[in-house]
Structure formats: structure tokens, C-alpha cells
């Protein structure tokens, strides 16, 4: 008998992740020194699993510390870093370098005033949100414990509760670009979340606000907002549901 000694199976060496050079082209503007925004390009090394937000960190650390952008959670839940990345609105922390060509262009979101580099004035955006009364309105005595709500009723407005107020939708809307008066898709999403909540009793007053000349009827169903939403909210559908509620005065 021959003893059989098993040869250890050769394990293929694990290839180290390969960094590649990415040219980051940024629409820069410093109100203290520039009269006009302009493009600047920077080359950085990036791994496929890096996020576009990491590219900005690298530019800031290695090239120019004055590069300015908002960021906080860095994984798509706080809504700070909505930007135009290669022409479409995205959160910089939710786009990976592996899905990007070797040149990445980054601009501030449109329709809101560029304050400095990728920072825009968010006030008009939040003002539109506040205008639609985005809070639960109830009358009469409150229950001792909780309001009850069926799982079915809870499901009706689930999609629009996901909104993180990043402004990717509103700043992708051509109607919003053309004049600053339209509430924009986010405000309608914010209203939808309460209009279709079975506990809410403010539907009439909220619908009246949205029935305004600058309200839901300005929507031209271009679907840009739905494409842009990093939370996957079906925004155009939500707007259609609000329009229907207005037409039939029934939710």
C-alpha cells in the first residue's frame, strides 16, 4: 500500500485591487475671488470601490484644501452631497468609481444659487417644503395610547416617507429650473406623505396649497425626478396621485 499524501491545492494569489487614475473635473466658484464659475481638473488615484465622494476628499487633501462641498454620513442617508455627476443628479457617496469613466465631471445641483464650489443655497428648497405643511394635522382628542393604523393604510404612504430632503429631484426638474416659483417635486413628495396617511386630517388645506398656480399642475411628467431620487421613490407616481386626489377630492 502506498500512502497517499495529498498535495495542498495551490491557492491562486489574490490580486490586489488596482488603483487607476481618474481625472476629476469640478465646476469651481469662489465668491471672494472669482467673477464666474470655471472648470478645474485634478488627477487622483482611486480604487474601484471608492465612492465619488472619496475623489473629492482626495482632491481636497492632495491638491486644494479650499475645495468646498457638503457631506456628512457618506452612505446615502443624510442627503448632504447631492451633485451633478457626469450630467445627472446623484449623491456623491452612492456612486462608485468602478461605474465611472476615467473622467468624472462634478457640478453643483441646478436651480439653486451656487454659493461656493459645490455648495448651493438650500433655503428656497426648504422653504418650499415648509410651505406644504409637512406635519401630521389632527383635530379633537388624541387617543390614550397610539392611533391605530392598518398595515395596508401604512403601506399607502410608505414610499414617500423615505425622502431625505437631498434636493436631487427638485434640482433635476426643468420646470423648477425655468422659474424659481414652482414648489418642485420634493415638496409634493413631502405633502403626499401626509395626504395619504390615514391618521392625518389636514388633507383639504394641504391640497388647496398644492392646487395653487405654482403647485402640482406645473409638473410636466418628465420623470427626471424619479430618475434622480437616490432613495428610489417613485416621485412622478406620487405627484400623479396628488393630482388625482385634487381632481376627485378623494384620497
Amino acid at each position, binding site marked *: 500500500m502506498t500512502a497517499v499524501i495529498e498535495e495542498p491545492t495551490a491557492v491562486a494569489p489574490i490580486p490586489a485591487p488596482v488603483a487607476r487614475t481618474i481625472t476629476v473635473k469640478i465646476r469651481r466658484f469662489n465668491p471672494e475671488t472669482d467673477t464666474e464659475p470655471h472648470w478645474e481638473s485634478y488627477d487622483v488615484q482611486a480604487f474601484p470601490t471608492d465612492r465619488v465622494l472619496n475623489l473629492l476628499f482626495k482632491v481636497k487633501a492632495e491638491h486644494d484644501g479650499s475645495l468646498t462641498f457638503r457631506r456628512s454620513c457618506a452612505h446615502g442617508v443624510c442627503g448632504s452631497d447631492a451633485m451633478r455627476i457626469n450630467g445627472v443628479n446623484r449623491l456623491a457617496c452612492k456612486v462608485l468609481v468602478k461605474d465611472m469613466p476615467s473622467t468624472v465631471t462634478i457640478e453643483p445641483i441646478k436651480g439653486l444659487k451656487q454659493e461656493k464650489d459645490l455648495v448651493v443655497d438650500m433655503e428656497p428648497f426648504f422653504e418650499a417644503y415648509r410651505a406644504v405643511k409637512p406635519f401630521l394635522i389632527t383635530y379633537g382628542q388624541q387617543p390614550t395610547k397610539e*392611533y391605530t393604523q392598518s398595515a395596508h393604510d401604512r403601506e399607502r404612504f410608505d414610499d414617500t*416617507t423615505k425622502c431625505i430632503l437631498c434636493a436631487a429631484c427638485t434640482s433635476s426638474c426643468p420646470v423648477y429650473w425655468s422659474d424659481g416659483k414652482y414648489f418642485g417635486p420634493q415638496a409634493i413628495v413631502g405633502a403626499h406623505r401626509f395626504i395619504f396617511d390615514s391618521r392625518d386630517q389636514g388633507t383639504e388645506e394641504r391640497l388647496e396649497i398644492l392646487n395653487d398656480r405654482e403647485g402640482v399642475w406645473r409638473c410636466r411628467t418628465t420623470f427626471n425626478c424619479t430618475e434622480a431620487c437616490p432613495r428610489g421613490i417613485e416621485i412622478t407616481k406620487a405627484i400623479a396621485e396628488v393630482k388625482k386626489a385634487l381632481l376627485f377630492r378623494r384620497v
Partner: protein
Amino acid sequence: MAIHHHTYDVVIVGAGGAGMRAALESSARVRTAVLTKLYPTRSHTGAAQGGMAAALANVEEDSWEWHTFDTVKGGDYLVDQDAAEVLAKEAIDSVLDLEKMGLPFNRTPEGKIDQRRFGGHTRNHGEAAVRRACYAADRTGHMILQTLYQNCIKQDVEFFNEFYVLDVLITDGRAAGAVAYELATGDIHVFASKAVIFASGGVGKVFKTTSNAHTLTGDGQGIIWRKGLPLEDMEFFQFHPTGLAGLGILLSEAARGEGGILRNADGERFMERYAPTIKDLAPRDIVARSMALEVREGRGAGPHKDYVLLDLTHLPREQIDEKLPDITEFARTYLGVEPYTEPVPVYPTAHYAMGGIPTNIKGEVLRDNENAIPGLYAAGEVACVSVHGSNRLGTNSLLDINVFGRRAGIYAAEYASTATQAGLPADPSASVISLVTGLLESAGSERVSTLRTELQQTMDTNAQVFRTEMSLKQAEQDIQALRERYKNVAISDKGKRFNSDLLEAIELGFLLELAEVMVVGARARNESRGGHMREDYPNRDDVNFMRHTMAYRGEDGSVQLDYKPVVVTRYQPMERKY
């Protein structure tokens, strides 16, 4: 540098869960301003996922007393038991209040708030896991943040967004206001107020691998520290078991509450060996340590055997979609893993500061072991009340911000409605102006990003899940060297508008000082308790260390340690088994 003056009754620093919950109480009673370095909805409360604990008993028998016990035991008996009792009792109304404010909780078939299991929460003092966590899918924190913000809009709460508070004013031993730097303009704002509430969140950015936002740099703790006031139990930091491997992005414990299982490279459900009764639902310190041990002993998964696996593949897809939609999307987006069919690579990630600014159960900030500073309050992760002791239970932080945020808001407003405004110092903004101009005019050569990376690296290497005298000494030396180099830090943006370069330099200053407090406290604590695991002292030592650390800043900037007794009411320390 332009200086603006404001007068309020109460100033709240921070607009996350604790700050906005406080604001809803305070602004209903007295003139209140909320200052945040972000926009309120960017706060990291929104990243919390799994739930908020309360013994509602909506789905099975439960009691606030069991909740209190679990909190005390979960914190490895370093919890102040009077505070834990307040937390567990007031939990029930806190959840019901949020529901009435509009929070869209998941529902039971009867339409009540649904509840699920979470680590360390048990029936009848440890018999079995209990369904106590009230939740909205895996975005409970998001819903709390949004609901509180919506109610602040309803109540017309006055916010100062992107105002970075850099100093608190204290005169004659009383709170007198706060000083902020306005990011948009570079102007200085002096807020005179009768009361100040700190609700500015945690300090996770001292670590490299963390679930924390970039903005969590311990500003509130740092301001208090520089005032010569104590910080409590800073050595206790929670490492959440399931961060996405290599990234630190949080995957909620709800994944295990819903039935997810941790496995090593052999596919073994290793938690059966470490916590035979509640297995994967043991408290976070135990699970994180068990995972790190599996990896250290060679049973880690992946090409470098450096993580373990979170297995959800046996769960029905509908359950994953309904209960865990966000975290499964994180796995897909950031690791390219499909949780329906593949286990997800996970490893512990720095998550939560148990320690912070010491307060009593009214939220009043303590100047020593017993005495409060009139008019100064703190709540939420920035504070240490101490309901979390040496290890926080999952779902108790969303609870903490609501219970103690509310309390701080009420007590601060009540105080402010009778107190007089304390006099302001002759030049109230002097120290902030000197801090800002010092950095703007620095001709040094050190870069913020370099120093920050080195700090985070040494903390991950030397002060993470496992610690020893040697490793902590190394960390302390590294931090001291970095603090020296920080004196020579320079920024390239010298402008006034949205100067994030300056902001990050200031934040780094706080991080460096707080990291030193954490490490010095950890080095002195020669025992293992909760989140603080000393390999050279593997056992809990109740004789010498059943006490809170109180760290003070010495005249020369060094860390001086003192101690404070733990409040024990019902529960005597026992061995902690699950």
C-alpha cells in the same frame, strides 16, 4: 471679523434627535434658538436603523422593570440605576408621543405599533429574547429625525443652520450663552442666554473604521473639556458588530433580530459557543469581541480571513424587503453582495460613545461628582447620564435622545423662565476669534488630512475591540506627538465664505484632545468591562473599578483622572452571562 449679538432664553447646540426633542419642549415655553453646524435633517440620528426600545407589551408580555434590568446588566453594571429606571419608565410615553407626532411605525395586524427582538433585551431577567424594539423598517432613526423636524416646522422652532458653536459662556458659575462661527459668512455670533443645552452628538471620527458621519467630531465634549469641566467614562466606546467589512457602514442589529445568523469561515454559527442562550442576540460588546476572536484564531472568512459573515439567505425575501430594505441595499451598493443569496462580510465598527458630559437625571451638567452648573444642560450621545454604563444596548440610544432630550428641554425652559440672564464676560468672543484667526494665519506646514488619518490609524490599531497596556501606551504617545504637530497645522483656504478647510482643522483639534482623554482613561482602567476589553486584565474588577471615570483637564492641558461612585438601587452586580 464681524460680530453679531443675539438674546434668547434657551440656546440648543445641535439639531439631531436630542436637540430637536429638547427644542419642541423648550420653544413651547420660552424663546429658544437651535444652532447646528449642519442642516437639522443631516444629523446622524437619521442613520440609526433598528428601533427604539419601550416595554409597550404590544406583542408579548413585557415590563419597564425588565427593561431597566436589561439596561443595567447590558451596561455591565456601570449604569446609574436611577437613570436607567427613568429611561425605561418614560420609554413608553416617548414612543407614544412620537406616534402622535406622526411617526410611521410598522404595525401589528391589529394596527398597533409593532415590536421586534434586539440584542440584550429579554423577558423576565434573561430568560429569552423579548420583542421590545418599536421600529419603522430599518430606518427608525430616519423617521424619528424627520418627524421631529416636521414638528419643529409645525411649532415654528427657530433654527440657525450651519452655525458652528465653538464656545460656551459661563460666568459666576452659571451658563450665560454660546459663541458660534457662521459657516456661510465667517462672522461671529454671540448668543446671550439663560440656559444652554448641548445635544451635539458623538465623537466616532477618532477612529478610522466607524459607522459615524464625518461631522461627528466631539465638538460639544471638546468645548466642555476646554472649560476645565469633567468628562465621564470616555474610555467606553461601543464597537458595533456588523459594520460592512472594510467600510464600517452600519448593518443594523435588526438583521439578527429578524433571524440573521453570524457564521465563520467554516459556516459555523459561532455565537452558540459564546452566548448559548441568546446566541446572535447577545449584547454588542460580547458579539463584537466574539467576532474579533474568530478572526484572530484563524476562522475569519474571505481572501484575507479578516471578517465574518452575516447570513440572511434563509430569510424569506419578502421579510428582507419589508423589514431590512436599506441595509440590504447598502450591501449591494458598497460591496456588490446580494443578501438574498450570499452572506454579507461584516466586522466590528466604532459606533457609539457611552461616555460624555456628565449630567444628572434632569440633564443638568455636573461640574464635579455632585454639583450642577445652573443653566447648563446636555442630552443624547454627547452626554453621560449614565444609562449605558460600559455598553449600550441596541435601541436604547434612540430612546435616550427622546427621554433625556425632552427632560433637558423642559428643565432648561423652567430654569430660564425664572432665572436672570448671567452677565456676559467683557469680551465674550475673544477665545473663538483667537482660535479662528490662529488657524487662518498659521504659517505651519502640517496638513489636517494627514494628522487626522494618523490619529484614526493609531486608534484603530491600539484602542479598538482589544486593548492592552502596551497598545494604549503606544496610542497615547502617538496622540501626544500628533498634538505637538497640530500646533504647526496650516490650512490653504484663507477665505470667509464656507471655509470647510478651517472647520476641519478646528474639528481635528477636538478629536486629538478627546482621543487622549479616551486613551488615558482606558490605560488606567485595569479591568475588562463592557466595551472596554483589556487583554492583560480580562476580568471585571468590581472591587477597584465599579466606578465612573471623571477626567479633568489639568492646567498644562494634561488629563487628570478622578472617579465617581455608580448609583445602585435594585440590582447588585452579577456575572454577566447570556
